[in-house]
């Protein structure tokens, strides 16, 4: 047939090839648009959640409440009470002129800290009272996930409230009591009422502490103290330093023997 010349066939082939190219180009455009849309959506999701986590982490924000050390009534009367003061995140207990300074990083939920206190707590107290050492307690909280009711940070808040309202002796008594009766990991720690009860036994006034314990007034200060520990290169509790040098419990025990 005359229609089916080689030229016609060639035209037809070209048309078919062009149509295919167009289809392929359209398909590629659709694919790129889809990928672009999905990537944009994912980037948006990451940005939003990232923004939320950044907002959730208040680390480093200025705390509304900073604890202080209440004047010890015994210091006025007899003048021989153990001195204590707050220096940054360190709670300094004992004679500032003491020959050695022992720094102890502790979490109130940490079982290894409770072991250290059980083994050396009495000797530490005696050495403080004898003016041989000054202890720089760095209390912090990173073990909230070890209890079902954020015991670690609530207990530390309560301890700081006692320090702030009742002074260093009550702080020491409450600190030792919390370690001697440390709640096991995995369950609920003491609730606020029990913390208040124990704080009162240690020498605090319920009327002065209840609101601050229930409101967790030092929460931000505790977060910052915990972050500072991490920045100090301390990844564990208890971490002991003697005159600024890392030490193990054995070295502390030897120091206390002297």
């Amino acid at each position, binding site marked *: 047939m005359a229609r089916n010349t080689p030229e016609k066939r060639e035209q037809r082939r070209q048309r078919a090839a062009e149509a295919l190219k167009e*289809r392929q180009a359209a398909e590629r455009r659709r694919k790129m648009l*889809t990928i672009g849309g999905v990537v944009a959506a994912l980037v948006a999701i990451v940005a939003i959640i990232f923004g939320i986590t*950044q907002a959730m982490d208040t680390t480093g924000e200025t705390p509304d409440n900073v604890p202080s050390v209440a004047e010890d009534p015994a210091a006025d009367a007899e003048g021989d009470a153990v001195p204590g003061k707050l220096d940054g995140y360190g709670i300094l207990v004992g004679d500032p002129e003491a020959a050695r300074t022992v720094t102890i990083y502790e979490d109130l939920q940490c079982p290894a800290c409770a072991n250290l206190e059980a083994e050396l707590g009495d000797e530490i107290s005696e050495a403080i009272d004898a003016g041989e050492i000054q202890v720089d307690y760095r209390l912090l909280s990173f073990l909230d996930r070890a209890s079902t009711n954020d015991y670690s940070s609530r207990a530390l808040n309560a301890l700081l409230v006692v320090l702030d309202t009742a002074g260093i002796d009550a702080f020491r008594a409450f600190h030792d009591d919390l370690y001697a009766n440390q709640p096991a990991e995995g369950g609920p720690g003491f609730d606020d009422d029990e913390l208040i009860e124990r704080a009162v036994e240690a020498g605090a006034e319920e009327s002065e502490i209840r609101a601050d314990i229930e409101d967790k007034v030092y929460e931000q200060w505790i977060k910052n103290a915990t972050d500072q520990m*991490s920045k100090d290169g301390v990844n564990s509790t208890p971490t002991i330093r003697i005159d600024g040098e890392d030490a193990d419990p054995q070295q502390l025990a030897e120091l206390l023997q002297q």
Partner: protein
Amino acid sequence: MKDWIGLLARLVTGGVWLVAGALKLPDPASSVRAVRAYDLLPEAIVPTVGHLLPVVEVVIGLCLVVGLLVRPMSVLSALLFVAFIVGIASAWARGLQIDCGCFGGGGYDADATSKYPWEIARDVGLLALSLWLVVRPRSRWALDSLLFGPREDIATDPRPTDADSTDPDSNDADTGPVLTHAERNHDGPEHS
């Protein structure tokens, strides 16, 4: 069969990312400390990395589980596993005693030294699964198949189309060297 292996690789790797990220999301401050404990990154970027990592993990995990952008997500996943393996190996080599922080937590761990080999082995296994998906991203029940069709690259896919049959000349009996429909469908219309 290989499509099923791909599905398994996606679910295992994606599932691990999802869990690891989700456990870290509620406590960003802890995630920052876990990153800092490795002592590898400058302090200026530690908080950003600590905040971003759990989010990225969750998104990679979700995408792998549902099969979205499987190849690029697997590349990211493999790169992250390489970074984690390097980080853990480096902590081990420097004698650091830290929890890897892989599933939240972080910081000191007295048993760290005995855990490092196992953690590295786990990450190597997950790296292998990620690499499988990089090489062969196609798998069963993937969202990618819905969005982009069953084939990886549409440009090399000579699927039959309507255009040929609407061509008035295509039914000519005397087609000479022009291929029949059946052959076109098989070999592509540009075949001569």
